[in-house]
């Protein structure tokens, strides 16, 4: 394995409290050395000149749907892993709502194997909390963990029975698998297509009230209190849920949460004239919700940015709006969108690294999340000044359901290194 020397970059690593010029040597798949610029010898190494670029611990997207097994026409582990690398990610966590459901070790192992074969971003499976994601019987967590699963979640479904959910939290904690909750009170959201409010009224569509999320988050927090076990909330979209999580954190409860870039940039008005590329679950919310989420990025209530990358083909999207599938892709637009927040002064570059690398790695006990010597050589190099716009045909995802095509971006990953191997490099013409 050859070594790589990354020179002249601005190294931003919250795990070591570093934000400044450093050269970094990667060797044998690990970070070998960090020194002041010019201090490390170039001989024998491939040299990457990272002048005017940011060198970040590899970005991690802890919430993606890769659709394999079962819906390979939408995405595969390989295509998803490549899209992830193109978007600047060195690792992704694949949700278990596959077909068959990832509630058995064999399925998790198969996804792990496909991820390794892809040779792009690392792919970690998140196993189902309950068999068939039915919210009734626990899956075999020890077995799933041994096969590679890094978390448990019934994503897409909420475990409605509080007694079952309490057991989930207990078993997950004992197994050492973080539990991730898709907090949605289905009794309140069922049949809904968009956020309940101005847009649902105007379009004559059944609404999903903010309280569908808030109810579920509050119940879950009560179960955390009862069990004393940690819990992470997926894709939080409402000001009310943020408020509840903030209060829970203040009380010292072991909760954390993520939100997705689309909730930080779009409101329900983006649905416009029934645009299914603005239909996701939870739905795009009101401007007040967006403002609350942005505020929670800076004060630390939001721990993680995750895309909820949800590929769907035209067969699921170019249909009656009420029947259109929920979800948008996000792997290749997440970093550019977050760079927009840095440019706007909403978050610092260091906070971006925390939200997109340090925190998800720590929450899920993943390798990466730090460029300290001895840690895996998972690195994302970003050109913060690179302007571009993404076209559907340039995307590596098999699905094209994004509301962000053509948006003028500034800031893009130029090199993505996983385990010391360059898995994505922007061509000179593009860079």
């Amino acid at each position, binding site marked *: 394995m050859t070594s790589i020397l990354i020179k002249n970059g601005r190294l931003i690593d919250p795990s070591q409290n570093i934000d400044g010029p450093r050269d970094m040597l990667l060797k044998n798949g690990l970070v070998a050395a960090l020194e002041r610029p010019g201090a490390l010898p170039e001989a024998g190494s491939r040299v990457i000149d990272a002048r005017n670029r940011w060198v970040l611990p590899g970005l991690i997207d802890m919430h993606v749907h890769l659709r394999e097994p079962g819906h390979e026409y939408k995405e595969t582990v390989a295509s998803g892993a490549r899209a992830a690398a193109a978007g600047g990610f060195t690792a992704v966590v694949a949700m278990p709502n596959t077909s068959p459901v990832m509630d058995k070790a064999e399925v998790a192992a198969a996804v792990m194997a496909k991820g390794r074969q892809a040779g792009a971003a690392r792919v970690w499976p998140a196993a189902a909390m309950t068999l068939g994601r039915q919210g009734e019987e626990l899956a075999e967590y020890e077995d799933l963990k041994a096969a590679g699963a890094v978390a448990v979640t019934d994503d897409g479904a909420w475990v409605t029975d509080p007694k079952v959910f309490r057991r989930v939290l207990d078993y997950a904690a004992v197994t050492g698998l973080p539990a991730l909750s898709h907090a949605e009170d289905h009794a309140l959201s069922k049949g809904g297509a968009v956020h*309940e*409010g*101005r847009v*649902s*009224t*105007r*379009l*004559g*569509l059944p*609404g999903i009230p903010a309280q569908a999320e808030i109810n579920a988050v509050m119940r879950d927090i009560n179960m955390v209190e009862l069990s004393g076990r940690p819990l992470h909330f997926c894709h939080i979209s409402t000001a009310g849920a943020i408020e509840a999580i903030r209060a829970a954190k203040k009380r010292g409860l072991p909760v954390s949460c993520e939100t997705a870039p689309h909730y930080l940039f779009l409101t329900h008005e983006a649905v416009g*004239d*029934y645009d299914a590329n603005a239909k996701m679950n939870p739905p795009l919310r009101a401007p007040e919700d967006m403002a609350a989420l942005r505020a929670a990025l800076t004060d630390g209530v939001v721990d993680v940015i995750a895309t909820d990358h949800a590929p769907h083909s*035209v*067969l699921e999207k*170019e*249909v*009656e*709006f*009420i*029947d259109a599938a929920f979800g948008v892709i996000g792997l290749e637009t997440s970093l550019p969108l977050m760079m927009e927040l840095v440019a706007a002064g909403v978050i610092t570059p260091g906070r971006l690294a925390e939200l997109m690398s340090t925190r998800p790695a720590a929450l899920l006990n993943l390798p990466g999340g730090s460029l300290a010597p001895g840690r895996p050589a998972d690195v994302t190099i970003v050109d913060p000044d690179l302007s571009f716009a993404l076209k559907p045909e340039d995307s590596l995802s098999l699905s094209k359901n994004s509301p962000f095509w053509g948006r003028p971006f500034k800031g893009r990953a130029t090199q993505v290194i996983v385990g010391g191997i360059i898995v994505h490099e922007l061509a000179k013409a593009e860079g």
Partner: protein
Amino acid sequence: MTETSPSFPKDLIDLDDLTPGQITCVLDAAENFKEVSEREIKKVPTLRGKLVVIFFHENSTRTRLSFEVAAKRLSADTVALSASGSSLAKGESLLDTARNIEAMRPDALVIRHGASGVPGFLARRLKFPVLNAGDGAHAHPTQALLDMLTLREVKGRLEGLKVAIIGDIAHSRVARSNMIGLVKMGGRVAVAGPPSMLAPELAEIYGVEVYARPEPALEGADAVMMLRIQLERQSGALFPGAREYARVYGLNRERMKLAKDDAIILHPGPVNQGVELTPDLYDDERSVILPQVTNGVAVRMALLCLLIDNPDKE
């Protein structure tokens, strides 16, 4: 219709597509067309050789019949499709159906669909005019136009009229299109219904008054529009039941006294008699429910002409 008539958009999806001038133009044209229906030979050659596809993906008697009669009185050829009679029953997608209809080169598509947004979805993909005959809980512009024609005939104007719309506002495309159209024409609209049947931000979006009881809406109204209650919604706990609904929200002689003496009663039909209004009011001289049906044909004739024979599409 006249040389001074304004140009029209390609499609009619909802009344926000039309300016007040265009709405007036439709109503004027409809008034002229009413005369055709009184002739011995009720037919004019205006759309001879034109093909109108009438596609009803949801059951409807009067709207469908009304469009067919309108097209035939204009000498257009019509093909009627329904969901069960079309390939949709075999799982064909909406997009495929649209492409197939397009391949047959019709001159207009009239579409009724249970899902909000479908007429606009088709209009963006088809080159010829699409007329919305009602989509989900979204819009029913031809119904609103025939209601406005009926109101204008009886009252002589739309501006300044107070119209009470009572019933399931949240799930009513008729209410939405009427709120848009009447407010646009200078009317004052007051809607009322049980809280479970009022949608968020109605007042802010449509510029209407919103009440949870019928009385303040009826107070001084020039016209009362009662909406059909879908009795099957009772199961979703939307309202306690037909009996209580009739007692609290139904229109009866006593409650009608709150409106102006010369107020008229409209209903888009079909009426649940004894629920939305008492049977004696249905037959009352103030009821214009059947003239609404007659006006429906005239309004649809006007729209088919204006959109198909529309040399300067916007």
